[in-house]
């Protein structure tokens, strides 16, 4: 059974313009799918819709989100919340703001296990220690007693990764998990996520604007423009021959650190106009039923 299937998901600002336009994608168990696109393309919005954390200003107008066959959008709110808590997790973007400053680290890893899944405190603590060791944090016992402000950004991101894997979720949404980090730390964290993913066999929706990251950790990717999936491809095929002109231009625009003389290749205006026309055509089609 597929871990996650999204069918025709449409989201819009309440009484406003659409933010996601009939997005469809699927994710096999243990698969990593990159969601790429420029800012505002809706890539984070998909992750938020899956996890049920869309802002109140936004509403889902149609579609299905099937988590292991169950449509989350048809579940009563309390059931949906518990279901998501039990089998999904989030690796957030900014480790500096994603930990509660007044709670110690230990409870922030074990809270879901104890409060939602009903583990004993002792088992949950043992599990947290094990996970912290797995994300290569020295002296897990001391770290569990620490407050977030006593730890570095890289440490905190490791903790958040450990916490995301705590309940062995079927699906993790990684929302630009390396964007807020130092370039030197980015690589380690990326390697860490890839390693954890491989060991635990967790499916990951990997939101990023960095195609370099996609090439390293993902098997498939969806390219988004203005809330519309313009290309859905296997990563190997995509990097060899992107099918859609917009995603080809996006790939060409990726800066190459190995060749500083190459300069920047912004997405050409003609390509932007073409993809905008596509979005407009889609909207017209929707409007006419």
């Amino acid at each position, binding site marked *: 059974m597929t871990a996650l299937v999204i069918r025709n998901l449409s989201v819009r600002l309440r009484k406003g313009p659409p933010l996601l336009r009939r997005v469809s994608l699927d994710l096999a168990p243990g698969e990593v799918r990159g969601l790429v696109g420029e800012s505002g393309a809706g890539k984070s919005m998909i992750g938020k819709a899956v996890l049920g*954390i869309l802002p109140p200003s936004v509403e889902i107008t149609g579609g299905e989100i099937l988590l292991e066959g169950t449509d989350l959008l048809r579940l009563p709110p309390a059931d949906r919340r*518990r279901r*998501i808590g039990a089998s*999904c997790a989030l690796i957030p973007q900014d480790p500096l*703001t*994603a930990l*509660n400053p007044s709670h110690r680290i230990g409870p922030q890893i074990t*809270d879901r296990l104890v*409060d*939602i899944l009903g583990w004993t405190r002792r088992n949950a603590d043992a599990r947290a220690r094990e996970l912290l060791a797995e994300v290569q944090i020295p002296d897990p016992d001391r770290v569990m007693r620490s407050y977030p402000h006593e730890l570095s950004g890289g440490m905190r991101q490791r903790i958040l990764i450990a916490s995301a894997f705590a309940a062995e979720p079927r699906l993790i949404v990684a929302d630009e998990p390396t964007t807020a980090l130092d370039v030197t730390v980015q690589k380690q964290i990326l390697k860490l996520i890839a390693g954890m993913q491989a060991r635990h066999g967790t499916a990951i929706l990997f939101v990023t604007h960095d195609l370099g990251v996609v090439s390293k950790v993902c098997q498939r990717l969806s390219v988004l423009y203005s809330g519309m999936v313009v290309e859905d491809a296997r990563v190997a095929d995509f990097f060899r021959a992107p099918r859609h002109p917009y995603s080809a231009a996006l790939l060409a625009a990726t800066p190459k650190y190995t060749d500083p003389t190459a300069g920047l290749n912004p997405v050409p205006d003609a390509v932007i106009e073409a993809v905008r026309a596509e979005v407009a055509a889609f909207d017209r089609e929707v409007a006419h039923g």
Partner: protein
Amino acid sequence: MPILRILLLRLLTTVVTLAGVAVIVFFVIRVVPGNPIAMMLPPGATEADIARLSALYGLDKPLVTQFWIWVSGVLQGDFGTSISTRQPVLGLVLGRLPATLELSVMALVMAVVLGGAAALTGTRYRGGRTEGAIDVANGMALSVPDFLWGLILILLFGVLMPVFHISGRVTPSLDLPFSTNFYLFESLIRLRFDLWADIVAHMFMPALALAIPLAAIIGQLLKQSLKETMNLDYVTLARTKGYGETRVILREALRNAALPTLTLVGVQFTFLIGGTVIIERLFSYEGLGNMAIDAVINRDLPLIQGIVLLFAVIFTAVNLIVDLLYAVLNPRLRHA
């Protein structure tokens, strides 16, 4: 270690503050027109009578000398003798202090409970009619001053629906077995719930009148910072863990949102203690504030000085407690 440093620093600033208060109150009440001797003498007293009585209370000496006599007495624990009652000031003031403390703390507890409940409910149902209703109630509570609330309460629960006592601290005919003046506290300790109920029935309305405006301030500020906290990343992360709205508010947001409110409560609590002066008068409640008004009317200089100094000590203590609480609630300060 840091808590000890806070305490030491506070002790130093407290000494300076109290010295300043002593100077100001001493000279200001002597500049203000009216003098205690005139209040004491019967009509038709002669110049010689006035001079004799002035000498008796040391009021004929130069101001600076008088100040010196008073200060050196205070430093030895002698706050002088009340002119109007001819009793030692310290005993009078300390005898009334428990009544005012109990009233203020009761009012503070009411304000925190009412304001906290309003803020939590408003946050839980934010953006809807419930929050709107809470905002309107807050606005009304805030725009009416405490003494007017006192009058409204007297009218409602003292006259129209007489469920509470409107005057005094305890029914005079009751036999009180207390050895301290902390009636409310001691009646609980002694398990005399009959007396406790009577004391609460006396204290309820003045405490509520003091509490309502503060509750509104707490409710507004706490709701504001709760709503801001609810948009932070760690709250969003907690939602994905499966927590419901109420638990997210209580577990994740409340403690962090309470910090700015706490500072404000400290400042407002000192205003509340100031408010006891009028409220105690209104409800004939035998506390420090009521005594302060009598002392001013009688131009009882030593008593005024004693009461003002004691109020200054209370204000400093309240601020110290707030600072310590802040350090306890905020782990970032504890280790700094």
